[in-house]
């Protein structure tokens, strides 16, 4: 192989490394079952993928066959996915060490999920989308139901299987209709047809594809699975679904909607805007009634992807920037929230009732501060990443003069103050008795401290993501 050939491979390196990692872990497990080893290989693989990103960026854009397209946008998200998966892996170690006897295969599934997510952001072809979505989903079934002795986890896994199966069916049917109409499945094929106007069949196909993705994003009214799955799954897996899985789907949705020009069709634009508003309203209103923290976070994620959809709709440089920043910020705040839940979860099951969090700030200051800050960030209070993220989304909505969406964000955010602040109130209230069996390791505290620092850093100096966002925007527009 010549040097030139190797250089050609550089853009594909991050994705390839992510794909190889779970295989290496599998082999390692068959040789020697060891928790730290499996984690170590996974982290090394993720680190290698992250390290490969700069070189890939320099060589991007590139394609590999019809199904894989690597550009600055996909690499930015691959970076986020690899980092996010690493955080989940670190978060999972003490959790699994407490509650699982055979934790090693967990990391195989984690690696496969990351690969699926990275493949999803690196494709401009509906067949690629379907393949990547399936890879991601199959890994997630296993992860959700990983604690086999817990009835809740099995139930959640089954629920996710059925719902995601339905979603895939819708997605595939939509793709089939599109193929019947235009005879191609790449985004360029669809864009070529979009300029001339879709036929009814094509329009229905696109609408079904959007509905399939809305399932994956848990956008209302396709959100029914989210609270049950978030509640039943192990806390780190819930975090993985909320971030890596949904973040990748959001990035794909952005790419698809902007590359195909689907939103120039008023009917489709109305559907997407409707999904956004309904998600914001439903997510925030339903969260008001929740006393279970994981369900509350599920509804909160429904609302947040509703906000994010406003950025997704704003095709253009500002849209890319808003999307990237929002997803990055959402990653950090979600990991903080679920990190606290994970650290408080013992063998008996996950910390879920609000009582578990009572007086957290006084008995476990690091966890308490992490939960308070992540709640405030999810609400969008300044000096946290969540505020700048909301600012970006509002700016994206305003730049497209979608004032209805902007006002919807403003009003539903005001509603969300109720339940986010309830989390703050609970963590600040008089300390309850310390539940036993939770995680007091330095590991969890260190991870949360780093995430808190990141949350504040993004809130104070949002410019640190700027170079990446600019590259991604330049690549697309």
């Amino acid at each position: 192989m010549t040097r030139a050939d190797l250089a050609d491979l550089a853009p594909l390196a991050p994705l390839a490394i992510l794909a190889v990692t779970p295989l290496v872990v599998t082999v390692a497990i068959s040789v020697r079952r060891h928790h730290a080893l499996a984690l170590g290989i996974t982290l090394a693989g993720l680190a290698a993928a992250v390290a490969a990103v700069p070189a890939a960026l320099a060589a991007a854009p590139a394609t590999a066959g019809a199904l894989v397209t690597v550009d600055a946008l996909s690499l930015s998200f691959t970076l986020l996915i690899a980092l996010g998966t690493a955080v989940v892996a670190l978060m999972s170690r003490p959790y699994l060490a407490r509650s699982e006897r055979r934790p090693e295969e967990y990391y195989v599934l984690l690696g496969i999920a990351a690969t699926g997510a990275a493949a999803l952001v690196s494709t401009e072809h509906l067949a690629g989308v379907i393949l990547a979505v399936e890879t991601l989903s199959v890994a997630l079934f296993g992860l959700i139901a990983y604690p086999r002795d817990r009835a809740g986890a099995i139930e959640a896994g089954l629920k996710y299987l059925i719902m995601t199966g339905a979603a895939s069916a819708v997605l595939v049917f939509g793709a089939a209709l599109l193929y019947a109409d235009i005879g191609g499945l790449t985004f360029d094929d669809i864009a070529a047809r979009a300029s001339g106007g879709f036929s009814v069949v094509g329009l229905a196909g696109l609408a079904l594809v959007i509905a399939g993705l809305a399932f994956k994003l848990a956008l209302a009214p396709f959100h029914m699975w989210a609270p049950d799955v978030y509640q039943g799954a192990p806390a780190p897996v819930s975090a993985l679904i909320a971030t890596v899985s949904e973040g990748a789907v959001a990035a794909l949705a952005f790419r698809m909607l902007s590359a195909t020009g689907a939103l120039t069709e008023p009917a489709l634009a109305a559907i997407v805007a409707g999904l956004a508003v309904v998600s914001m309203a439903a997510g925030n209103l339903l969260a008001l009634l929740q006393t279970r923290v994981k369900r509350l976070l599920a509804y909160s994620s429904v609302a947040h992807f509703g906000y994010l959809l406003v950025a997704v709709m704003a095709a253009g440089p500002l849209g890319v920037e808003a999307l990237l920043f929002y997803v990055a910020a959402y990653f950090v705040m979600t990991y903080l929230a679920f990190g606290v839940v994970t650290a408080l979860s013992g063998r008996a099951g996950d910390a879920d009732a609000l009582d578990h969090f009572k007086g957290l700030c006084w008995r476990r200051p690091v966890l308490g501060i992490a939960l308070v800050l992540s709640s405030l960030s999810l609400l969008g209070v300044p000096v946290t990443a969540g505020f700048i993220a909301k600012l970006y989304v509002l700016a994206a909505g305003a730049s497209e003069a979608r004032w209805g969406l902007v006002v919807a964000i403003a009003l539903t955010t005001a509603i969300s103050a109720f339940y986010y602040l309830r989390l703050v109130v609970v963590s600040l209230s008089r300390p309850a008795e310390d539940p036993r069996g939770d995680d007091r390791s330095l590991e969890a505290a260190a991870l949360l401290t780093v995430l808190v620092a990141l949350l504040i850093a993004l809130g104070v100096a949002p410019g640190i993501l700027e170079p990446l966002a600019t590259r991604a925007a330049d690549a697309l527009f």
Partner: protein
Amino acid sequence: MTDTSFVLPLLLALPVLGAILVMLVPREEHGLHRGIGLVTALATFGVALFALALFDGEEAGFQLVFDLEWIAALGVHFKVGVDGISIWLVMLTAFLLPIVLLAAHRSVSHRVRDFVAIMLVLQTAMIGAFVALDLFLFYVFWEVMLVPMYLLIGVWGGKRRVYASIKFVIYTVVGSMLMLAAIFYVYVQHGLTTGEYTTDLVQLRELVLPYGAQVWCFAVFALAFAIKVPLFPLHTWLPDAHVEAPTAGSVILAGVLLKLGIYGLLRFAMPLFPLGAAEAAPFIAILAVAGIIYGALVAFVQEDIKKLVAYSSVSHLGFCSLGLFTLTVQGVSGSIFAMLSHGLTTSGLFLAIGVLYERRHTRRLSEFGGLWKQMPIFAALFLIVTLGSAGVPGLSGFVGEFLTVFGTFIAGETFPAGWDSYLPAPKLLAAFAATGVILGAVYLLYMFQKTMFGPLDNERNKSLPDVSRREITVFAPLIAMIFVMGIAPRPFLQTAEPSVDRFLTMYESKLTQPEAVTPYAVEFDEQGNAHRREQPAAPGDAAAERDGAGDAEARAERTQR
């Protein structure tokens, strides 16, 4: 950028650095926490005094400006600066914090470290909101303020603190989120018309929005600010928040936070959306007068002293809103002066209530009575503060209320052509507002009489100790300033005047044709008699009256030139 541009960032950074330092000290070292807090607050006040010394009172524009790019993608800058209006509000904030920290010495005994840190962070946020010259930066400080204030009520508050703190936050968040949407509208409109996307207030002020947009945007901004003020029907969060908040929280809330509502209207809502403001002026003026009377009447029937003072704030802030919307030099200056004075006197009242509460753990009026005999020094301090709040000439409260009522009285005649119906029946409004002054004296003196005079018949009151030396130290600077502002209001008004003039000139030039510039000076002379006629009606310190009148005349001359 000048070489003095470091002053305001320093002013903002000091309290945060102090807060970080406090958090690094071990939890048990309460004395050290208080010490660091007090030293930081005093140092901040020192920097504020330095800023005041650098400030040029003749200049109308923004001074000590510091400008740094913050979010490049959105054109957001970290831009701060002060003018003759905000400099005094910054001074007020910096002045009150050491007092509050000293006063909280006994009342806050648990989680002292967090308390001190939160107060310092709040300090930065409040000063930041007063000096921000970028809409987003202002919004950031405005929202950041919410969290410490929420914690202050929610952690150190009374029995119903959770209810009160959530109510406080919900009210504020509803207003501010809508305001954020409106900020975006302005931002995008400016970007579309000029090609430059910016949130710089000075640039955005130049933008003339279409009539409908101005009305909507003003409505949204005014809602956010009116909740904070609070304007009459939106005031219901205030008594709850005050009653549940610890003394320190009440002082900061009444002393500074409420002023941000008025300041926001003056600095942002009115200059950005003058047509909307003009349309809304009659409603706001009527609501302000309604608030003055309603607040006074409700205060009169309160059994809880703190609630009484909370409602008195509704009444007093009514004067500030009213003065602002008269759009006369007198009204606007009066509004600013009344804000400063209210910051001093109401803080004094809440501190006095704190003194009583620390001793008796009750705030019911009927529990007190005859305390004058038991606590003579306290009674004297309390009396000065009460009279200052009631607007007795010679003390600070008088000047502000007088100027706002006077400004209202002449409002109809002074406002530019084409907008002669700007305020409906200004003389009637002025008459009602003046009734509020009288009612204010009634309920405040009633409060004083109930607590201090009469027989000392409650056994538990017979052993109350008088104020300690520390408590006298807390009251001394407040009382000194109440006297200074009452006897010599001129320096305060003079520094603010160029900025007020500029505010009014800019406002009018956006409303009317260029030829109709500043007719209020001429009109003012015709009303000079009315001014003099009112003087004998107000009894008391003649020196203060001469001062006030002389000041008004000087202003008239200046505007004529």
